């Protein structure tokens, strides 16, 4: 039985996380930045599921469900912030929000 090894799954999770992190640093569009955060969360959840599958336990999948709920909550608030961002600053460039106002 040629099962997928733990290493391959974790390498895939690391690659996806690195791509998402690079995009987070490189892209300036707020929507794309949120999408990159989704990619990183998804990669973290993938690592959980890979580890759970390695030992045949359900705990990894349970943790993925929590990551899923957190990602949904995060993206809802994040996109609401994006809408306010657009209304206030008339752009979606995250570099336009480099000034704080108390």
């Amino acid at each position, binding site marked *: *039985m*040629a*099962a*997928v*090894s733990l290493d*391959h*799954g974790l390498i*895939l999770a690391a*690659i*996806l996380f690195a*791509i*998402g992190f*690079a*995009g987070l640093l*490189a*892209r300036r*569009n707020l*929507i*794309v930045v*949120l*999408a*990159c955060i*989704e*990619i990183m969360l*998804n990669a973290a959840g*993938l690592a959980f*599921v*890979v580890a*759970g*599958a390695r030992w*045949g*336990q*359900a*705990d*990894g*999948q*349970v943790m*993925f*469900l*929590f990551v*899923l*709920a*957190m*990602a*949904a*909550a*995060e*993206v*809802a*608030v994040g*996109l*609401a*912030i*994006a*809408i*306010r961002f*657009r*209304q206030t600053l008339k752009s*979606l460039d995250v570099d336009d929000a480099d000034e704080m106002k108390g």
Partner: protein
Amino acid sequence: MTVLFTIAAVVAVLSTLMVVTQRNLVHALLYLVISLFAVAVVFYTLGAPFVAALEVIVYAGAIMMLFIFAVMLLNVSADSPLRVPSRAWIGPAILAAVLLAEVIYGLVLTSPPLAGKTVGPVAVSEALYGPYVLGVELASMLLLAALIGARHVAARDGDRDTEGDDA
């Protein structure tokens, strides 16, 4: 089933790279859907069918719906046209076809348990509502807080001023 896993992993990495490098926002979201589908196929090959279904339903369905709604509400069509030209479909369509072929192969031509051991929905549910039931309650509170917070943040200024009156 290392071959299915490897093909799905390559599709996931390629489509995720396209998400990061695409200049057009709608094209990037199109590739993000393919990336999530690819990770769902990876979950299936790892013997986690329940999580694979949830990945498609919640991530590729609900969360991407939020992204599309935000793109429409923000009216980004000025800087990136919402109408996707036909050649922009080619890349995502090819990657999606690869995943579809994999799923058909996995479902029809081979027996369902692809990895060493399949952990099905029953085992996940027993763990979720057994030792992890406190986490489920916390997740529900988090989602409620996100719902109220998103409504408050995205509300227009006029709505926010009268919020105390009509409450």
